[in-house]
């Protein structure tokens, strides 16, 4: 909206047909605001009258422009994109080369793909065959043991052992398996915890599926005071050995906002060292 909107629809008509004395108060006020005197009004009016009297004729362009355009109209519109067009002699050359390559492999002189008809098993050295046999034997034994264990379970052999102790046994078993890697893994955990504390992951980086997984594992009730602080998982019992901890979803106590707790360590096995869970979770 400009001040000129106050003019009548066709302000030129106003200039052409009205005299200064015929202008409305509003129009006069506008001219006054623009600093246009009566003399200047007449000057503009005369210029406009002169403009009305001149006629601008179309200018005929060269005739060859039309013929060029008509030719261009007949051309098919070019495709856009990264389509590289080669001259026909290159494309046909590539085709011939490809055909020759295929023919070479199919009709290779002297090639006999059936000449080595010895079974694969017979081609394995005797020593390796023995090793394979031993492995197969031990596998069969292991399967038998598994059957024995399941039989024992059916007979409530393990029912006498308290549940925490059972978990402890399993944890220890895992730790024994991973014993060789412990120093290296401990170092790795420390590094990742440090990194997590320094550079927290933005909440948007966590996929919804991972959040859902975490939601099922643990919910930490927080309030505004501990946002930004480091928190410890309160109910670690919800985690079983080898649980992968990737992220945890938390809510504030008033459930107004859902915040995300992220650990930089994207997969963490509790079996490695459950006590390291503390300091792994940061609430943003």
């Amino acid at each position, binding site marked *: 909206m400009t001040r000129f*909107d106050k003019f009548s629809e066709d302000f030129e008509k106003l200039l052409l047909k009205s005299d200064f004395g015929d202008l409305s108060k509003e129009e006069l006020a506008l001219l006054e605001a623009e600093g246009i005197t009566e003399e200047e009004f007449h000057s503009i009016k*005369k210029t406009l009258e*002169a403009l009305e009297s*001149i006629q601008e004729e*179309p200018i005929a362009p060269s005739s060859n422009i039309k013929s060029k*355009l008509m030719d261009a109209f007949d051309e098919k519109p070019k495709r856009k994109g990264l389509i590289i067009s080669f001259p026909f002699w290159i494309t046909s050359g590539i085709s011939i080369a490809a055909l020759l390559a295929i023919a070479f492999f199919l009709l290779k002189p002297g090639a006999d793909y059936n000449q080595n008809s010895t079974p694969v098993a017979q081609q394995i050295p005797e020593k390796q065959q023995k090793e394979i046999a031993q492995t197969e034997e031990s596998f069969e034994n292991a399967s038998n043991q598994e059957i024995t264990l399941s039989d024992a379970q059916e007979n409530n052999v393990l029912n006498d052992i308290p549940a925490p102790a059972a978990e402890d046994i399993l944890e220890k078993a895992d730790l024994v398996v991973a014993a060789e890697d412990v120093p290296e893994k401990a170092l790795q955990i420390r590094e990742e915890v440090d990194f997590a504390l320094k550079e927290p992951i933005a909440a948007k980086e966590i996929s919804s599926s991972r959040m859902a997984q975490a939601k099922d594992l643990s919910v930490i009730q927080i309030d505004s005071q501990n946002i930004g602080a480091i928190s410890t998982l309160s109910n670690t019992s919800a985690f079983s050995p080898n649980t992968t901890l990737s992220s945890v979803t938390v809510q504030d106590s008033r459930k107004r906002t859902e915040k995300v707790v992220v650990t930089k360590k994207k997969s963490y096995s509790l079996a490695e060292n459950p006590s390291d869970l503390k300091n792994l979770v940061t609430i943003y």
Partner: protein
Amino acid sequence: MTGNLKVLSDEVLMERIIQRDKMAFSELYDRYSGRMMAYFMRMLWNDREKSEDFLQDLFMKIARQPELFDTSRVFKPWIYAVANNLCKMEYRKTSKRASSVSLDKAPEIADNSQKIPEQVDRRAFSRKLKEVLETIKEPHKSTFMLRYFDELSLKEIAQIHECSEGTVKSRIFYTLRNIASKMPQFQHLNS
């Protein structure tokens, strides 16, 4: 598909051009080439060669990508808007804003023009007006030209420049005022 193309509206012609009707394209060119050429001449310092290049570019766009035009809209403001954009790009490319014939070097126009026959006077007015317009900056210049040379409505100009009609009125009024102050010797013309 041909029929009498002359009675068809610009928008219908464009619909046919989109369907690759060559005769429709020919008709549209005949309708607009003269006035678009005049427009380019005015906008591009009366450089005929450049104006013809621009005219060719403009219609080449229509020939190759007619679907860029929305057939539910009015064609005339659209083609002027495309032409205006081509000129704006040219202005950006070159710093040559002033006319090749500057006002200082313009032929002297006698103040006692009342003695000159009216026909010559009008020609002199037209020439002087174009020179004065060269000194006026965009978008005022093209707004003024579209109004008084191409006789477009305020609404059409507003569409071309993507502004309100009030802004168009304002630009035209200030340009008129500017021209009036620079061409006092011609104010007798219609009196």
